[in-house]
């Protein structure tokens, strides 16, 4: 009897998640339908107009898709030189030592800091620095947002990569050492090829985190509705345009914002899926 109850409870709890996810999906599709119907699916995604004027309203998602992809890609590039050394330090060079444990805890702590704090730090500390170095006159922009995003995703990339580096079989490494390989050669020739797809997947998951980041980006990106023409210019990401304009939007604009939300949902889902598949492959190999 008790066993049966337990089973039912578990079943209900497990079923809730797919239902919630399906509900979110359903709500997004129905509310975004107006925008897709009015502008056409591909035209909405490829148009760069974002025009509020009554009567000639024109909404297109391209500036925001560009903004999201630019910030995410830059964040990924900036994050590699910080996260990969941490992963090697924790997973290979000092694996199992106290200092590695401390370092990985500190890195993981970064993941627990609320994004508003990163936003404030970026706004009050990093932005003046960008202005002081004359990188851009207004301080805000794609570059500033990407730099802070990079720090935010370091723990995601680093701790998962470290796990995969630790999983590299010892006999392989010892074999290489016995052939006279240096530590650096072992990392290049053994650790990276073996843990490669695992490390790759950890970066994919980090990207998933950067794609949807809202608060920090809204505070730092400059919030202009244009396609950014350089990395120092201002722009808007998919998440930040929704955060900015959801409050006062109605009718077609509201539907367009929800359509952007749907597109972001899909992009994030696809990227996470790729990451999961890669992890699976890495574990099997």
């Amino acid at each position: 009897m008790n066993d049966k109850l337990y089973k039912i409870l578990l079943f209900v709890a497990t079923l809730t998640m797919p239902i919630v996810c399906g509900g979110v999906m359903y709500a997004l599709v129905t509310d975004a339908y107006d925008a897709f119907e009015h502008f056409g699916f591909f035209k909405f995604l490829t148009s760069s107009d974002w025009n509020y004027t009554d009567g000639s309203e024109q909404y297109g998602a391209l500036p925001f898709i560009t903004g999201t992809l630019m910030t995410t890609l830059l964040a990924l590039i900036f994050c590699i030189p910080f996260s990969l050394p941490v992963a090697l330090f924790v997973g290979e060079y000092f694996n199992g030592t106290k200092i590695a444990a401390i370092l990985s805890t500190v890195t993981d702590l970064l993941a627990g800091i609320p994004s508003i704090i990163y936003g404030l730090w970026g706004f009050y500390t990093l932005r003046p620095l960008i202005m002081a170095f004359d990188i851009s006159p207004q301080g805000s922009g794609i570059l500033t947002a990407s730099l802070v995003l990079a720090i935010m995703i370091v723990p995601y990339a680093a701790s998962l990569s470290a796990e995969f580096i630790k999983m590299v079989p010892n006999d392989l490494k010892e074999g290489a050492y016995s052939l006279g390989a240096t530590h650096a050669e072992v990392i290049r020739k053994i650790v990276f090829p073996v843990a490669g797809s695992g490390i790759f997947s950890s970066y994919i998951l980090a990207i998933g985190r950067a794609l949807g980041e809202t608060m920090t980006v809204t505070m730092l990106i400059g919030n202009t509705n244009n396609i950014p023409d350089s990395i120092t210019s201002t722009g808007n990401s998919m998440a930040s345009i929704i955060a900015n304009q959801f409050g006062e939007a109605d009718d077609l604009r509201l539907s367009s914002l929800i359509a952007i939300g749907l597109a972001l949902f899909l992009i994030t889902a696809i990227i996470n899926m790729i990451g999961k598949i890669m992890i699976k492959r890495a574990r099997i190999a």
Partner: protein
Amino acid sequence: MKKIFQSIMTLVIAFATVACGGNSNNENRKPQELSGAGATFPLPFYNVVFEEYSKTNGDAIAYGGIGSGGGVRNLRDKIVDFAGSDAFLSDKEMAEMAPVIHIPTCMGAVVLAYNIDGVKELKLSGEVIADIFSGKIKMWNDERLTALNPGVNLPEASIIPVYRSDGSGTTFVFTDYLTKISTAWSSTYGAGKSVNFPIGQAAKGNPGVASVIQQTPNTIGYVGSEYAFAQNIPYASIQNQRGEFVLPSSKSISAAASGEIPADTRCSITNSDAIGAYPISTFTWMVIYKEQNYSDRTKEQATATLDLLQYILSDETQAITSEVHYAPLPKKAKELSLKNLKTVTYDGITILQ
């Protein structure tokens, strides 16, 4: 700490009075719960007024600062007793719903806040503001700016305009003014709660714009007066239609409404031609249905709504406005509004005698 304790105590007292029906000076009806939603611009004023009103009248009022657009939408869906809006409803919006009346509750303004090293006073004219925000005037030492500001050492630096990234009544009032001043602005950008500014950067809400300005040299941006006054940000004096350079203040904002006002009070008072008027001033309104019997509302609720509006229009309440960084309504607007309140009906019968 003492402040927190005090506000908790006032809250407790307010609830207590509501709970026991308390010292309602309206003996012939029970205390009601009213709900409204809309503009965030008058929120600090409303918070003070509603608390005072609850204390004296027993009715409890809940107001959600969800933006003017959202407030009007809620009123259209008939789920609130009143909507707060910074922009009056257009004829088209009015045609889409049952007859409503607009009651102005207080006045505010949009100020041009700036951050230029060493500059403490800045004079601007409407045309210059329009050209700065459309990117035609690019440098602080542009000759049109130096001509307006003799003796002020304006730097040779690019101007960075800052504007609102979210839809806002503040943007509407500001662009409404520019539309009246400049034909080029009106044909290219127009007026609205969201406008595609060609240059500069944007931030969310008055606090967002104000902090970007405070943190970034050579910026200029528009901020709601209620926020700018409370924060002590430097702001520019602006040339009005009479050629006077006027700093925003309770007095100069009220002066902007001293001219003619239409009977339904739906009018924009930007670019006012009154003496001493600050040119980017505005009313903020509460909008209610003329026929109060909707969505199962009782007559007592309708009466409470009118009591609240009369309370806001009273001299005592209007006197609070400048304490919380707004400006009082001019006499004319009050008289018109009290007259308009008398046309409100329940089941076709007027409520106020």
